[in-house]
């Protein structure tokens, strides 16, 4: 995974509430079994709307979204497609839980802020200003004073280092898992003896 420390650039504003992952990545494109190059399908059914802020060729790494962004389906194609368009940071008042988790695992930082703070960042986005998101100091700098944000420690560290979750668990916790399994075989043997 690509490491992240600081992201700076213009932002896209997409204020609609409840943008679900079906809108982000329509289901008919889920027949594709690749994970790269999916940006061309992002928001496929909204692109014809002249007011829709996303374009295929983007050079804006920050997205200021509306409430409950990424709700619905767990499809990881949603962050893959958005990431393919160059987005590295998404700012909103709330996110679909699975989507936010999928973002973290793909080098995209979802930042949850209070409505007034989102509004302030959105104003800068709509004015075309450069916005800087710093994961080290956990601040967003746009117009005015820097806005502090919080992010879970483990996910922040993973993003800062670009770690692979799977190989890291195997390297650091292999023995813990083996010990857990031995204990579960004693406590719940039916989970181990049954034909599954």
């Amino acid at each position: 995974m690509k490491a992240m420390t600081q992201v700076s650039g213009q932002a896209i504003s997409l204020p609609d509430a409840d943008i679900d992952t079906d809108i982000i990545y329509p289901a008919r494109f889920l027949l594709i079994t690749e994970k790269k190059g999916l940006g061309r399908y992002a928001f496929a059914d909204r692109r014809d709307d002249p007011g829709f802020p996303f374009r295929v060729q983007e050079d804006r790494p920050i997205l200021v979204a509306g409430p409950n962004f990424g709700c619905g389906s767990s499809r990881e194609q949603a962050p893959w497609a958005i990431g393919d368009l160059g987005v590295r940071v998404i700012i909103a008042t709330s996110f679909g839980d699975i989507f936010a988790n999928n973002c973290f695992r793909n080098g995209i930082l979802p930042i949850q802020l209070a409505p007034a703070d989102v509004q302030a960042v959105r104003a800068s986005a709509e004015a075309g200003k450069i916005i800087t998101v710093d994961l080290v100091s956990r601040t967003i700098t746009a117009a005015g004073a820097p806005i502090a944000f919080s992010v879970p420690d483990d996910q922040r560290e993973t993003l800062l280092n670009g770690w692979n979750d799977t190989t890291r668990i195997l390297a650091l916790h292999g023995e813990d898992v083996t010990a857990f399994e031995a204990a579960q075989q004693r406590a719940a043997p039916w989970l181990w003896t049954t034909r599954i």
Partner: protein
Amino acid sequence: MVRTLYEKLWDAHVVTQAGDKALLYIDRHLLHEVSTPQSFEALREDGLTVRRPETQLAVADHSVPTHDRDGAIADPQAAAQIALLERNCAQFGIEYLALAGEDQGIVHVIGPEQGFTLPGITLVCGDSHTSTHGAFGALAFGVGASECGTAMATQTLWQARAKTLRVTFTGALQPGVSAKDMALTFIGTVGASGATGYAVEYAGDAVEALSMEGRMTLCNMTIEAGARTGLVAPDAKTFAYLKGRPRAPQGDAWEQAVAAWRALPTDPDARFDREIVIDAAAITPQVTFGTSPDQVVPIGATLPSDDKLAKPMRYMGVHTGEAIEGLAIDHAFIGSCTNGRIEDLRAAAAVIRGGHVASGVRALVVPGSMRVKAQAEVEGLDEVFEKAGFEWREPGCSLCVAMNDDRLPAGARCASTSNRNFEGRQGVGARTHLMSPAMVAAAAIAGRIVDVRKVLA
């Protein structure tokens, strides 16, 4: 120390702790063709194997055709995707339930009917409706494709513990009202993100009275309120449903398991972070009118006025002040992981009563699994549906996700038992009204949205 069901499930699966996260042991993983190609690819890239292949079970459901399944799959992309799942499973030693076999079906239907889903376990799947399995008192939640890969390679996932929310349904449901109406009432009450960050436990007389099928419907829709996990405490009904299922424990192991499962329900004095009480007796049939499952009204209502609803209502072609009852439909869909089980088909068939699908309406019945289909055929439900003009299909996700050729044209209006009324969910520009199986059957016959209680009266 007193604990909730969720806390007991959580505590029993913590491998190790770091800050506010726990490395959670994953007992079971269900795989389907759409969310796993990239998971397997990641395993290959990292040179990894599946730690316990015997805890994984795969089936194709999302992109499968629901008609003409004897020959090759017509859509080359779908055929390739399904073949890839089969190859990946063979390579990594995972059991795959063949498309032509008698056990194929939607992941969230086959897990329980195989006895793969059990109380007290953790279960994941690359699908947000994995919350369904919580109906058995399992900690089950949807994950993305990369987490599927991590779960396969390590049998664990890093997770944050959720806050707890108990939703108590008091009293008894009225005739013509079902678990789907309970789910839509809850979602309408808290909103589409109202339960984000919570693990929801459903309790109360009306939940205890539900069949396992009804409890699955309720837990299935939990994600539509933002929560990844929905739970119902296991009880005698849970055990009766599972006993003798192909993959459930047998003999002494069964007795031992049931004894342990009896200790799972929430302790009487346990505290929840949040409580909601809903009067089940006051629930009437629910119908969605917008493009989010929380945009829902009771059948007797007129549509609300709210600036925030202007866009979804424009998409849906409905208007403030208009009654939802009487709205003409041209499609009806009975099926999905929400409402594709035998009880759902029985409830829909019971409404038909010699009637026929209205002229100009196309109606599909898609059983949730081959076993559901076989049971329905034993009961003669297929004949009831076909005689009434419904199409009787093969199992799959079908019009709930519209990845196969079951897709609606732009502007079509569908009464649907599925779980999402999102824009384009059933086809680009198509309009979806979510409701119960009985309500969909009644709408198909009438050609418009009607109150099923009047039909049954």
